[in-house]
């Protein structure tokens, strides 16, 4: 059964607002998990300076980073699945996240780079790494007559991921213990409290790329006619593929620079969205953004609470939930191919 896209999207955004509110209320004091749902009141009354600082510098940026990461990955996955007509396309599986991750780890591994150049080098570097990995995967996966095949994409992703993992391991062993601990948490997909400047840059990037892909949604729909068929109805397919690769790389790079290697969000959210409201990419982009953000805000709140006062990287949760779903999707694809 299909629901109407607009009300469902509004509901998703409303749920996101509620989740963000509750997640901001969630914290720990003296090792105890607390839920301070009256935080806006306490904040504006000015009575609780400590809480104000905790929210402004730790909790709110973390919730914002989780939301942006989820939205970015979901839209990136949606775009990649749309233009490749491949239900298994996902920035994590295709190695796009890996490419971004290598650059970020490299930036952290060389001691003086980030302090000298400023934190902005992290998202920029992540974008460059994602872009390089996308180009590499697309080159590897081109089959006869330039067609990107499902198998080619997955195998290309395996190759790029393996290569990126190897480089990251080399970089990680050179780190001192404290930085290594931080880097491992980040690599496993851990949302951390980023600088507000970095959040702002990411918000602008995610917003621009998502609106751009939303506007291209009608043209991406035409890929349902095959690449040649899309060309016949007036889509400049090469240009659209290039634009989509850029947008997906930007989105993934920003997500990785905020939260490391969170997997499966870009894979599963687009599928869920299509199940709910059908396959129109234009209707799917805003809903995917809202749902991806919602899932990561909830997921990160859960990851902070389950083994409190310690924390799980949210990427561990998405992997635990995502892997069985990926298994089902692969089985379905294999049967269809046979």
């Amino acid at each position, binding site marked *: 059964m299909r629901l109407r896209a607009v009300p469902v999207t509004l509901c998703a955004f409303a749920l996101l607002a509620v989740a963000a509110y509750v997640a901001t209320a969630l914290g720990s004091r003296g090792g105890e998990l607390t839920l301070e749902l009256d935080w806006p009141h306490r904040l504006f009354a000015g009575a609780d300076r400590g809480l104000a600082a905790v929210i402004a510098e730790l909790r709110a940026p973390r919730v914002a980073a989780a939301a942006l990461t989820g939205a970015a990955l979901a839209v990136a996955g949606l775009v990649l699945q749309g233009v490749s*007509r491949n239900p298994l396309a996902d920035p994590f599986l295709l190695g796009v996240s890996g490419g971004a991750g290598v650059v970020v780890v490299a930036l952290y591994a060389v001691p003086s780079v980030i302090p000298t150049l400023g934190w902005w080098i992290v998202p920029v570097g992540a974008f460059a790494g994602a872009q390089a990995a996308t180009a590499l995967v697309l080159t590897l996966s081109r089959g006869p007559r330039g067609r990107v095949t499902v198998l080619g994409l997955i195998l290309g992703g395996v190759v790029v991921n393996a290569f990126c993992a190897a480089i990251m391991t080399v970089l990680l062993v050179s780190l001192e213990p404290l930085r290594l601990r931080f880097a491992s948490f980040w690599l496993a997909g851990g949302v951390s409290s980023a600088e507000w400047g970095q959040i702002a840059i990411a918000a602008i990037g995610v917003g621009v790329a998502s609106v751009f892909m*939303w*506007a*291209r*949604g*009608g*043209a991406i*729909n*035409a890929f*349902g*006619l*095959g690449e*040649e*068929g*899309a*060309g*016949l*109805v*007036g*889509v*400049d397919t090469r240009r659209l593929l290039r634009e989509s690769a850029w947008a997906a790389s930007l989105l993934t790079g920003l997500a990785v620079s905020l939260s490391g290697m969170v997997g499966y969000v870009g894979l599963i959210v687009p599928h869920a969205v299509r199940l709910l409201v*059908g*396959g*129109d990419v*234009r209707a799917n982009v805003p809903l995917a953004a809202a749902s991806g953000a919602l899932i990561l805000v909830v997921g990160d709140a859960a990851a902070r609470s389950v083994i409190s006062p310690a924390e799980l990287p949210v990427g561990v949760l998405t992997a635990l939930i995502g892997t069985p779903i990926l298994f089902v999707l692969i089985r379905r694809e294999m049967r269809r191919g046979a």
Partner: protein
Amino acid sequence: MTLLETRELVCGYGARAVVDAGSFLLEAGESVSIIGLNGAGKSTCLRTICGQLPPLAGDVLVNGRSVAALAPRERARSIAFLPQHAEIDLGLSVEELVRLGRTPYLGRFGHLGPDDARQVEIAMELCRVRGLRGARLGELSGGERQRARLAMVLAQEAPVVLLDEPTSHLDVVQRFALHGVLAEMRERRKTAFVIVSHAIADAERFGDSVILIKDGKAGHLGPSKRGAVRAALVAAAGIPEEWVY
């Protein structure tokens, strides 16, 4: 009014010329059939005319403008092409498919307007697929799917429509129904058609004139008359007449 014109057109792939298509004119509301044996280069001709393949020599003009010089959107508004095979996503519904025919008219933000919705309805009505609007392509019979694809091409509102073997999977009833749709389009919208077909009935009943491709050369056979198409095919194939039916 001349809609489509080829000038000394040579079609092929890379450096390999497949067909010397020569020069011909197509007026509004007119239709021409291209016949020939398998591998004669009929599809290559169509793909060159619609701009999918660059011409090896010569030029194709629509409304006096070279197809190669048109932007993809503008080209799709001038020429529509129904290829014989296409990798269409079978999960699409009929209505979703027909709406894709409006892709060249998408607004700046990828949206369709009320005029687009009306054209989609008209195309579905013409091809008698309105009742199937919610059905997925994978659930349809060959004839229904072909009508849905044709509706998409008609929704494109191009003055020139190229059809490659549009009746190859259709039974006799469906085939004549399709002829009816095309005739209506010629009458009402003055659409010009180029049809490639193996079926002699298509060429005889639907084409105003016939072009035969033989030995890498396209020759105008003149107006299609009962018997003329069959005789030409027999001559082209060098086979006994009773083989052709």
